[in-house]
């Protein structure tokens, strides 16, 4: 206790105490800014108001931290500080919020104990937060049940349509009475028991979309951070108020996302009402009074914004402003003790610094005073909006950049209420039409690249939606690498690839439709990407002619192995239109800016453009086999030469089993080209052979689609 008593009289403890007191008006000022901003942003979207609330909330600890830094003594100043303190007592005792309970004799006795009290409070709130976090984690593992697989599948579909690449699990829980989202890195949606079976499918989808919107917006993380701010500045009601505003607007944002996605506000409003009703029925006894926030949300969803409530915000803002002025005027004169201690120039520099970091955290005294003699409200509001608008706009712009075009732009526009009727109906019609053919979309978009022709034909023959649902389920089941588990890794990976393609390869056309998208979705991420997206000069390899050349933007993707195609496959994408739309090319010269050489030989079209005189070896025993020697090495190893094995299939294309290896004349294996590779061949099958100069034998066995097997030996030399 003695140590504590000693500590509280150190300058650091005093600085904490003063920072806590200063934050009373700082927090009030920030809340006033927020109230004004929320009022001015009323016609804007919920996202703008959410951004304003979050900015304000996170500016609060910043303001507190900066004040603390400014007040922290760098010199020995106890005496100065203490001597001047009685001044502050008279001014501050007018404020009701810190009437000390044990009524100490003077404020000077009381102030030092603020810091330890505050520490205790923070410790309490953080301990509670930690407990909450542990409990939330427990919810993911305790009293849960896996829902019928169809729902997880539906969630995956929704996820891909929302362009969300993170996996999300759906579970039923006996502990929640409303659907909730838990976890940030591995999010889980918990549904109350019976929800999935009792609510109509359309309503459940609304709920899922709402939760997915939370995930996409990283709300869980922001909510955790909010908890940190609340705990740190727990004693100020403005913090809790700003936090509540952020929570409310966050729900509105997700509501908007649902309406935007489904195009029907009524179904969603009915969903919310039904959920609340279920909860009420489940626990009739507990009837708690609420602020009617759900009613407000439903009204907001279905109608224009309520004009009646608009009058409350300015009144509140004005009240807060008044209090802030009073507090600010009372607080500023208490600064001198500190200012005496720190050299004036240094202090000014620090203050200036703090103003540039967060403009609204410490309103310049000049601005405040000036606004008093002219029209205070307008001047101050102009000053505020100038800053807030800027911040909010940049925040929105940033959000729009990160989100994807389909959802972001209409979302930013506004809520359903602010749209004209015509727009709304037109949009709803379009959306309904789209929903009417989800199976068409599934066939032509979701699985376009992986469905086989037979499967496609079979799917088209199906008559009812039930059959189609069943087919889709079976379709994925057949591809599930681990059929025993609820996760279908294949489907997860497939939708992840689509989302990735849409995120990274979109130009004029959606990413999944581009050449890069098609290759990515079909074969997955390449093992290596050589990126020349900026075009410009390029050192051409020898087999393409060598030397430096000017190129269009291009990329080379290298796959070590693709089943059915072979080893070390290099695919080149060129963007000759410079629009970001890369096209796959088999012609290495296409990337050269002055478009070169048309009319290539078939061999050259397969990617082999030999700069050195090429020698061709035809196999005597199997006429399908051709070996071309010549060219440089792609790996830059000058000792070996790039050669090519080409197998041209019979007129009938189909599945070939190919085994091929290169041996020395003495029979020693040099390179295994293909070990019983199952190749779906429709064009020439091409393999690279990287060999040092010498004589070799290619021993190959090719089994054609009819099951006829043929072995051959072909001698060839590399110069």
């Amino acid at each position: 206790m003695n140590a504590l008593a000693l500590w509280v009289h150190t300058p650091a403890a005093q600085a904490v105490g003063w920072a806590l007191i200063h934050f009373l008006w700082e927090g009030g000022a920030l809340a006033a800014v927020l109230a004004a901003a929320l009022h001015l942003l009323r016609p804007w979207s919920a996202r703008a108001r959410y951004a304003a609330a979050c900015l304000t909330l996170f500016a609060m600890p910043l303001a507190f931290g900066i004040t603390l830094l400014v007040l922290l003594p760098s010199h020995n100043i106890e005496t100065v500080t203490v001597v001047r303190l009685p001044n502050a007592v008279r001014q501050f005792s007018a404020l009701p919020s810190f009437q000390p309970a044990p009524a100490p004799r003077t404020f000077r006795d009381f102030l030092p104990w603020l810091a330890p009290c505050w520490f205790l409070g923070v410790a309490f709130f953080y301990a509670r937060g930690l407990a909450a976090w542990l409990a939330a984690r427990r919810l993911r593992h305790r009293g849960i049940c896996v829902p019928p697989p169809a729902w997880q599948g539906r969630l995956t579909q929704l996820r891909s349509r929302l362009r969300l690449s993170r996996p999300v699990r759906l579970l039923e829980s006996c502990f929640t009475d409303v659907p909730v989202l838990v976890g940030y890195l591995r999010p889980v949606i918990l549904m109350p028991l019976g929800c999935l079976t009792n609510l109509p499918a359309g309503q459940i989808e609304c709920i899922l979309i709402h939760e997915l919107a939370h995930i996409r917006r990283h709300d869980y993380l922001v909510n955790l951070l909010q908890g940190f701010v609340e705990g740190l500045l727990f004693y100020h009601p403005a913090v809790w108020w700003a936090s509540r505003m952020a929570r409310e607007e966050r729900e509105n944002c997700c509501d908007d996302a649902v309406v935007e996605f489904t195009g029907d506000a009524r179904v969603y409003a009915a969903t919310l009402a039904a959920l609340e009703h279920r909860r009420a029925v489940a626990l009739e006894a507990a009837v708690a009074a609420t602020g009617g926030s759900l009613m407000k949300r439903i009204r907001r969803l279905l109608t224009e914004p309520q004009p009646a409530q608009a009058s409350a915000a300015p009144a509140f803002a004005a009240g807060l402003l008044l209090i802030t002025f009073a507090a600010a005027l009372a607080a500023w004169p208490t600064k001198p003790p500190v200012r005496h201690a720190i050299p004036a120039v240094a202090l000014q520099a620090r203050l200036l610094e703090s103003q540039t970091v967060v403009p609204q955290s410490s309103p310049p005294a000049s601005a405040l005073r000036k606004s008093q003699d002219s029209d205070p409200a307008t001047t101050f509001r102009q000053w505020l909006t100038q800053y807030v608008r800027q911040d909010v706009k940049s925040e929105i712009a940033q959000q729009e950049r990160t989100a994807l075009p389909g959802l972001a732009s209409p979302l930013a526009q506004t809520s359903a209420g602010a749209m004209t009727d015509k727009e709304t109906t037109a949009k709803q019609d379009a959306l309904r039409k789209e929903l009417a053919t989800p199976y068409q979309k599934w066939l032509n978009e979701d699985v376009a690249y992986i469905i086989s022709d037979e499967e496609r034909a079979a799917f088209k023959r199906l008559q009812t939606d039930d059959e189609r649902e069943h087919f889709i389920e079976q379709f994925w089941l057949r591809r599930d690498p681990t059929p025993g588990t609820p996760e279908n890794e294949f489907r997860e990976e497939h939708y992840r690839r689509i989302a990735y393609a849409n995120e990274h390869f979109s130009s004029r056309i959606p990413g999944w439709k581009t050449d890069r998208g098609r290759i990515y979705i079909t074969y997955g991420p390449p093992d290596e990407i050589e990126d020349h997206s900026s075009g410009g000069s390029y050192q051409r390899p020898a087999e393409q002619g060598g030397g430096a050349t000017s190129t269009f933007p291009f990329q080379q993707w290298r796959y070590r192995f693709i089943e059915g195609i072979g080893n070390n496959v290099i695919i080149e994408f060129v963007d000759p239109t410079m629009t970001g739309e890369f096209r796959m090319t088999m012609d290495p010269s296409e990337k050269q800016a002055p478009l070169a050489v048309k009319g290539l030989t078939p061999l050259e079209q397969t990617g082999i453009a030999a700069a050195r005189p090429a020698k061709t070896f035809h196999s005597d025993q199997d006429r399908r086999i051709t070996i071309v020697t010549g060219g440089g090495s792609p790996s830059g190893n000058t000792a070996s030469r790039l050669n090519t094995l080409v197998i041209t299939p019979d007129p009938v294309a189909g599945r070939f089993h190919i085994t091929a290896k290169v041996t020395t004349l003495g029979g020693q294996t040099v390179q295994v080209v293909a070990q019983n590779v199952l190749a779906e061949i429709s064009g020439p099958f091409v393999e690279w052979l990287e060999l040092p100069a010498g004589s070799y034998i290619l021993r190959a066995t090719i089994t054609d689609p009819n099951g006829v097997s043929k072995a051959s030996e072909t001698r060839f030399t590399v110069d």
Partner: protein
Amino acid sequence: MSGKPSDPPRPTDAELEILTVLWSRGASTVRAVHEAIVHRKPTQYTTVLKVLQIMAEKGLVRRDEKQRAHIYSASRPAEWTRRQLAGDLLQRAFGGSAKSLLLGALSSRRASREELAELRRFLEEYEKGTP
């Protein structure tokens, strides 16, 4: 339900998981319960059977032996067990505060009955207003 002389004890975590399956899917055979659980974590069929037998002894579940494959059902509704568990001190200390971390379509506060009635009225009026 009231026929039982005494209430069943609090279920363990493993028992709770089986109960959740029974509440979610209704009365089920051991095989059905096992299938539901194995979706989440690898579990032996015999383990599920053993736990179900113990739960039947404890009175947590009831066994219908009329058919060849015994059918199990939860002896208490989910709400009852939840309240029983809410009496658990740990649960009470943690469960309440966890709500502030969860994100859901509804706030953690419940709507009053009057509010619900108002809500329903509003939705009905809205339906009438916009054909």
